């Protein structure tokens, strides 16, 4: 089977290996080494999509990263991926792709009617058309835009592929393996520098793969191969293909996306699909080359209009002809090189050169080969709808304003060359102040901001000799700065054809009476008249023009459109291009998959999961877990067919009646040592700490400087200069940073040391009227009587051979103890407690029962200490010392904090004693009032009181102290509930606190 557009014996593909693939449901074949684009063109397929706005037929325009059109939907292993560039997608066996932006299919596209409803889509069409009436937005405009726009469909399935991140450091990062990149890398590597050489394409060599040059008596391609082979052998060099450096960030951090499996039918075992490299480079050499500029003429978006460099690449790399009857339209010598390649392969091209009488070695060669060259000629418009069939051409006057007689010429492709645009994206991203180079009509890097140097054609140097010389020197000098070595490599001799100057002309005028669309931005469907309209409507800044017309946006980032857009603005505005300036280039240079950005941080890997040393026991005993910060905590222990409500009620009742045990390992713990700890705590907490004796614990509240409660907990004096602080689970890390801040910055004179010991201790809270019986049996040699271990007392004990700390503190409001042992002994302790507690009917309880117990006791926790409340609001004003100063004290004098009707925590009971009040409900005076119904407070925490067997909630209520006994309504629009309630004391159970002291 032959392919109509493939020619023999040329190219770098492997003709021994055929690869079959599917495009829009049809079967084709290509060869190993093809891209999807080259294989489709070889098969004569030129129509690959529809354009973004007008749904005009779209073919191929480039051969790589510059491709604005050929964006397809890829299908692989039952997965789908949008926005894949056909010019970059390497062919693999079984590849399947489809066109996007067309419905029902690429050949008959309903959206193409937009092409004839021109008026509907001028510049700013989003802003104008879809503005009004407002009610149309959701129902009419948005669905329409969503269906009509966009390039592909994202998969909604879980991505089974693996993505990785890697951090790397190097002396020189070199972005691109064309002649400039290879020369810099080679010189730097030979001088001992640690080098990373990154190439976006599968093949190294850049322009050397397609140009007819000699370097040191080898062809350019052979020279590149030899250099790469040598670099790969060097231990100080990392050479990567299929790797795009797409972003240049602060402090010489660059990010590179490496594609490891995208060219394979299936990811290799133990290999990720893509790897994101974070590279911190001492020096960056930007050798990203240049992209050919389009020429602008009528219907210049017709399939078959391609960049002349792309036509040459398809021919020389893939052995593929973009057409058999090519028309070359150029304003410089590059078009001739393409024409010569066609001719060498038996194809007769016609060259239209906008220049009147240029002279150079390349032009002479073309003439010698007998190629038909028409000087001072332009393409006025491409003809043909789904593929170029012919072209309207004309002679153009010397001043480029007047067209001669329109002639028709048959052709099946038009290869355009409007000279070259240096790829300055990375330099610009790094903060480089780019400058306009009038010689080449393009921006080049100027003053570097970071440690970055641009070489080769990316720096506007278009001769190989000059490129190699300066790049070798750059590699040598930059590496010398770092390695201090001075090993020089000799610069090889170069044979290349001399080129002459290009023509500044780029946009063909419209012939009288014709309204051809002339495209500037091929991806976003921006035509010349759009930009003219934007300027007429008063948009001046290039950034505004960009947003109004969408010029240079989206994945293309202006690769082919940028300069022509600027030229047009400068022409209309009568300004020079540098005065117009260019828009900001933003990373990523090319689209990056979300998978690569996320890396391994997915699902359970997105944050660490911390488990207590007792976790396995909880699992075995049917615990249902809940996330508490990064910790997993048992929420309740399920028995039989219990749900959350039944189980937590049973557990809480058992604590009130008998005894329960709760895993409190997750509480933050901070070990504090030093002679000044008491003074420090006295400044950190609101209450007095100077007189806490050894062997005693104290409850404390700490504030932020703005007077808001930051955290609460107990701190115990273990010995003279040794304290043990506990924090809430959620605030543990913040409290440590807070303490360190004051010790290191504000009061460095205090001799105090803090360190987190959260993970060093496992903790069990034993609570309930029978807790002392359990404790006595756990520590038979220790006196744990009310006298031996009074409320807020501390002892150290021997738990069957294990050192333990025993605190008599209570969160549940019952007689309770907390036992801490070193983490490794946590499970041992727990099992002992369960075993010994059996005769006292001990049951483990989870966070839900824990909440119930604290809520009905009126103990405040995270839902009340919510970053908006002061001690008074939480009923903690008794803990605020009047005598001493502490962090945040001065703020408590603020008038809002001392207002007569200041909010305060209260209890809330539904009048029917049955309806649970949703957390977050608003408390209001009237059930039915004009909205917004004035809010008096909100319900912060709700439970089912096991003491009274009815619902009970805590709320933070304005003028709470005077509201006890009031009847209000709890409103929950979310749950659609209105509940009549009574305000009661927040201390619903044991208001005098007798149980904890019993």
């Amino acid at each position, binding site marked *: 089977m032959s392919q109509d557009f493939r020619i023999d014996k040329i190219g770098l593909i492997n003709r021994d290996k055929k690869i079959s693939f599917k495009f829009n449901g049809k079967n084709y074949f290509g060869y190993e080494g093809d891209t999807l684009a080259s294989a489709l063109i070889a098969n004569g397929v030129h129509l690959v999509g529809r354009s973004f706005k007008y749904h005009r037929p779209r073919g191929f325009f480039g051969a790589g990263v510059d491709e604005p059109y050929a964006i397809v939907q890829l299908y692989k292993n039952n997965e789908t991926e949008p926005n894949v560039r056909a010019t970059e997608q390497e062919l693999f066996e079984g590849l399947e792709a489809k066109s996007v932006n067309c419905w029902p299919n690429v050949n008959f596209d309903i959206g193409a009617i937009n092409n004839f409803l021109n008026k509907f889509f001028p510049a700013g069409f989003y802003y104008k058309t879809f503005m009004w009436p407002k009610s149309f937005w959701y129902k009419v405009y948005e669905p329409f835009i969503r269906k009509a726009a966009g390039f592909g469909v994202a998969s909604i399935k879980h991505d089974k592929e693996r993505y990785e991140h890697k951090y790397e450091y190097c002396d020189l990062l070199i972005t691109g393996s064309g002649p400039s990149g290879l020369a810099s890398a080679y010189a730097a590597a030979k001088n001992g520098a640690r080098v990373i050489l990154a190439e976006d394409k599968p093949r190294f060599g850049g322009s050397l793969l397609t140009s007819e040059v000699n370097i040191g008596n080898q062809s350019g391609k052979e020279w590149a191969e030899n250099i790469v082979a040598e670099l790969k052998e060097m231990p100080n060099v990392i050479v990567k293909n299929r790797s795009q450096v797409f972003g240049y960030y*602060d*402090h*010489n*951090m660059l990010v590179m996306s490496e594609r490891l499996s995208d060219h394979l039918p299936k990811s290799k075992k133990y290999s990720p699909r893509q790897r994101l490299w974070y590279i911190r480079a001492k020096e960056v050499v930007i050798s990203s080359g240049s992209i050919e500029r389009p020429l602008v003429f009528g219907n210049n978006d017709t399939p078959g209009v391609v960049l002349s460099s792309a036509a040459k690449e398809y021919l020389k790399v893939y052995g593929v002809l973009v057409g058999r009857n090519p028309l070359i339209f150029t304003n410089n010598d590059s078009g001739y090189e393409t024409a010569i390649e066609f001719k060498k392969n038996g194809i007769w091209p016609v060259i239209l050169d906008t220049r009147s009488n240029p002279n150079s070695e390349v032009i002479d060669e073309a003439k010698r080969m007998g190629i038909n060259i028409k000087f001072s000629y332009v393409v006025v418009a491409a003809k043909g709808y789904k593929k170029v069939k012919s072209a309207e051409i004309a002679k153009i006057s010397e001043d480029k304003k007047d067209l001669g007689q329109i002639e028709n010429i048959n052709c099946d492709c038009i290869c355009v060359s409007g000279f070259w645009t240096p790829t300055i994206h990375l330099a610009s991203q790094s903060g480089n102040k780019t400058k306009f180079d009038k010689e080449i009509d393009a921006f080049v890097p100027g003053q570097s901001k970071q440690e970055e140097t641009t070489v080769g054609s990316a720096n506007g140097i278009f001769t190989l000799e000059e490129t190699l010389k300066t790049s070798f020197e750059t590699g040598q000098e930059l590496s010398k700065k770092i390695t201090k070595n001075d090993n020089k490599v000799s610069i090889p001799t170069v044979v290349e054809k001399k080129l002459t100057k290009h023509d500044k002309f780029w946009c063909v005028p419209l012939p009288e009476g014709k309204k051809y669309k002339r495209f500037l931005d091929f991806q976003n469907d921006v035509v010349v008249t759009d930009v003219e309209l934007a300027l007429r409507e008063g948009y001046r800044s290039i950034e505004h023009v960009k947003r109004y017309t969408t010029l240079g946006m989206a994945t293309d980032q202006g690769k082919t459109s940028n300069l022509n857009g600027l030229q047009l603005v400068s022409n209309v505005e009568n300004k020079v291009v540098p005065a117009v300036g260019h828009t900001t280039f933003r990373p990523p240079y090319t689209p990056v998959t979300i998978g690569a950005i996320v890396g391994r941080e997915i699902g359970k890997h997105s944050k660490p999961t911390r488990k207590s040393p007792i976790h396995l026991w909880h699992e075995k005993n049917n615990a249902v877990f809940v996330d508490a910060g990064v910790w997993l905590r048992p929420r309740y222990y399920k028995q039989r067919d219990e749900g959350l409500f039944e189980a937590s009620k049973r557990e809480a009742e058992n604590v009130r009646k008998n005894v329960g045990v709760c895993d409190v390992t997750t509480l933050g713990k901070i070990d504090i040592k030093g002679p000044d700890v008491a003074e420090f705590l006295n400044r950190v907490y609101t209450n007095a700490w100077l007189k806490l004796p050894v062997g005693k614990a104290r409850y404390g509240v700490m504030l932020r400087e703005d007077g808001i409660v930051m955290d609460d907990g107990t701190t115990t004096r273990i010995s003279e200069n040794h304290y043990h602080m506990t924090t809430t689970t959620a605030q543990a890390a913040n409290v440590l940073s807070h303490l*360190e*801040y004051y010790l290191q910055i*504000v009061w*460095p004179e205090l001799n105090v040391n803090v360190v987190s010991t959260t993970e060093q201790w496992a903790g069990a809270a034993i609570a309930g009227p029978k807790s002392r019986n359990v404790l006595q049996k756990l520590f038979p040699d220790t006196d744990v009587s009310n006298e031996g271990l009074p409320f807020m007392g501390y002892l150290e004990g021997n738990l069957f051979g294990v050192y333990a700390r025993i605190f008599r503190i209570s969160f549940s409001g019952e007689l309770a103890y907390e036992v801490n042992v070193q983490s490794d002994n946590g499970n041992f302790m727990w099992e002992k407690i369960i075993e010994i507690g059996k005769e006292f009917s001990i049951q483990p309880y989870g966070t839900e029962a824990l909440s119930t117990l604290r809520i009905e006791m009126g103990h405040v926790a995270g839902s009340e200490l919510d970053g908006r409340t002061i001690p008074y609001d939480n009923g903690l004003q008794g803990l605020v010392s009047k005598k001493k100063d502490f962090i945040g004290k*001065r*703020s408590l004098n603020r008038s809002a904090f001392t207002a007569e009707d200041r909010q305060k925590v209260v209890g809330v009971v539904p009048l029917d004693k049955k309806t649970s009040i949703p957390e977050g409900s608003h408390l209001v005076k009237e059930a039915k009032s004009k909205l917004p119904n004035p809010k008096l407070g909100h319900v912060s925490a709700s439970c089912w009181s096991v003491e009274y067997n009815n619902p009970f909630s805590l709320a933070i209520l304005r003028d709470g102290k005077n509201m006890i006994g009031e009847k209000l309504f709890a409103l929950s629009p979310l749950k659609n509930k209105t509940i009549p309630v009574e305000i009661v004391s927040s201390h619903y159970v044991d208001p005098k606190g007798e149980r904890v002291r019993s």
Partner: protein
Amino acid sequence: MLHIKCPHCGLRSQNEFAYGGDATVKRPELNKEVSDKEWDTFVYLRKSPRGKHLEFWHHISGCRQWFKVERDTVTHEIFKTLKPNEDN
């Protein structure tokens, strides 16, 4: 990602650090009479300069020391880093 030189550990990537606010703010001394205005200024008012800014950073995933960084808020250039008790 910034590259920050911890005075104790050397150059590390930003993801090891936490930002800690304006380092020129001095907390009023304890037990000293402070006017409302002075206190408000200390708690709430911060300059947001365009350019050089002296700020605290905390080497939270490293040595856990607080230190000062002089940074340009526009270019992110870091001019120097100092221990809390150093002035230059």
